[in-house]
């Protein structure tokens, strides 16, 4: 908590405990001002924004939510924030209920990381029909379904493909044409994994490198270690491994070290986690990409605020992905 009296999560925590105690005889004053009716919003009133996340127990989403709370605490006059997550990543039922609950609560906009790209579309359409503005972050809603519902929801997020291509090109520039390389993919059905794989692929194709293997290591360090070790054993001339996230880059690094090929096989990752930053500083991993995970929800909120002020239309907005190399780290 940030020591701010108006901090909604703190107020809510105490409020919740008060309810538990007695059906409410103790509590804090001031439940926050109510903004006007949703359909025709009074533009001078402070808008209320709901952030609907996946599981907040997952560090990635927890960090995103914390980033949003900090942003609200720094801009208390601009908007009110209410953050909710679901206990299980896959619990679309609860998440769809949350959307309806936020609408009934009178929020002006919902920023959502959908647990499912199709199943949340219908509940969101109902919210949009009530005049609530919607912004999609993290997991892009299915375009076909949105089209069928005649629903326009802006997606605010990083272009994973372009980001991976940037990282891939940085590595490819250091290799001669024809060099053998491999890709470690995340969970194959994951959109992010496909995008990053395609970005690496483009860089590999442009520099005329030879892709000998592209395999899934499920986003995890352990499986990445096994897969990378077997690829290294089968391809003694391998010059580089492109990893779709940093956890897998760490697994690949351990495999390269175990094979006694440190420095001979280059590795790149994606996410900019602290362990990989250390490896980049040590010269063991070449580069990674930073998609500013803690700011992803904030970007969504800023888009929602602009939408509410009618400053922009319902268009997708790309957020920055930065190439992180040794020079960029302190």
């Amino acid at each position: 908590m940030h020591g701010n009296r108006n901090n909604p999560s703190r107020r809510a925590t105490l409020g919740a405990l008060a309810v538990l105690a007695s059906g409410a005889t103790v509590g804090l004053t001031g439940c926050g001002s109510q903004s006007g009716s949703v359909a025709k919003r009074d533009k001078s009133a402070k808008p209320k924004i709901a952030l609907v996340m996946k599981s907040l127990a997952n560090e990635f989403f927890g960090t995103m939510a914390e980033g949003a709370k900090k942003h609200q605490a720094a801009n208390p006059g601009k908007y009110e924030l209410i953050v909710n997550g679901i206990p299980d990543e896959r619990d679309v039922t609860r998440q769809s209920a949350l959307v309806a609950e936020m609408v009934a609560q009178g929020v002006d906009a919902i920023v959502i990381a959908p647990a499912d790209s199709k199943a949340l579309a219908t509940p969101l359409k109902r919210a949009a029909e009530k005049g609530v503005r919607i912004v999609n972050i993290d997991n892009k809603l299915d375009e076909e379904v949105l089209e069928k519902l005649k629903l326009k929801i802006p997606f605010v997020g990083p272009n994973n493909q372009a980001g991976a291509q940037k990282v891939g090109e940085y590595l490819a520039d250091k290799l001669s044409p024809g060099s053998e390389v491999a890709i470690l993919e995340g969970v194959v059905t994951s959109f992010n994994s496909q995008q990053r794989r395609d970005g690496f692929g483009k860089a590999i194709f442009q520099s005329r490198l030879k892709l000998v293997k592209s395999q899934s290591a499920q986003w995890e360090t352990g499986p990445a270690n096994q897969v990378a070790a077997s690829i290294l054993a089968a391809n003694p001339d391998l010059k580089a491994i492109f990893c779709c996230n940093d956890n897998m880059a760490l697994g690949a690094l351990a495999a390269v070290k175990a094979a006694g090929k440190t420095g001979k096989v280059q590795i790149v990752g994606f996410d900019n986690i602290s362990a990989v930053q250390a490896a980049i500083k040590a010269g063991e991993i070449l580069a990674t990409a930073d998609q500013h995970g803690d700011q992803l929800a904030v970007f969504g909120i800023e888009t929602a605020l602009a939408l509410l002020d009618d400053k922009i239309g319902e268009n997708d907005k790309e957020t920055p992905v930065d190439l992180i190399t040794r020079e960029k780290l302190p």
Partner: protein
Amino acid sequence: MSRGGGDGRPQFSTGQLGGLLVVLALMVAGFGWLQPRFFSTATLALVGNQIPDLAVLACGMTLVMVAGGIDLSVGSVVGLSTAVLGHCLGEWNWPVWTGCLAALVTGAGCGLLNGTVSVLAGIPSFIVTLGMLEAARGGAYLISGSQTRYLGDGLEGLSAPIAGLNLSPSALLAGLVVLAGQGLQSFTALGRRLVAVGENDQAAWRMGVDPKAVRIIAFALCGVLAGLAGMFQTARLGSADPNAGIGMELGAIAAVVIGGASPSGGRGSVLGSFLGVLVIAVLQTGLAQIGAADPVKRLVTGGVIVLAVLADAWRRKAR
């Protein structure tokens, strides 16, 4: 722990239902005070429209628990019937009503299998249904190819609120199921037999009741209602999600226990369980609307479940 009446009549204690109503009223008042919007008809209708699936699941669970069993598989059976429904409508282009029938039959089949295996082989139902929890979810992924299927508005009619009433046909249907379930308990021979079987097999035999048949019927009914819950979910989301209903068995069991059923059988009422569902739904909606932090939500929900059961136990002891 004292058990319900040995006369074989279902326990329908107005005192207990009254206690639950008081708890509900206090919660609504508390949330309304913290968050004035909570009092809006929109929020109250919302609570009504969110619960049809949990309400029918709790109804089925009550029947099984009164008969001394438990069904851990209902959440997965919801997922399986959802996947079947999605496949029938989306892949085979069946008419809506036959798809819904297929979902109900799927649920009934799972329930029947649960009941038959556990009763005939004498295996505790929590083990058999734990197996079904895994197997049915696997079946759901298999049928759906682990993909959510968008169905559009074919089932919209079930979930769209009726104008002027603010409640959806699903909610009304669920209300009817609850009334029918309570009717079955209070006014039919099967209702009395469920209690007798839950109390004591020997006693049931002496009444001339075959406990096996009664238990199997309870599981089958529970399965059908899980299929119905799958229909409700599919209608609400406009899509068939093979992950539907994950963890819902816990919500259903919690509702039944809050509603005053005995985990060891012989006591419990569908109406009480329905009030348990309302307690959980109001808590969930209220905590979300005031924006409680996630850990707090779970602490509070867990606390309320245990407090409700404690209060019930004290009330019984005092009597």
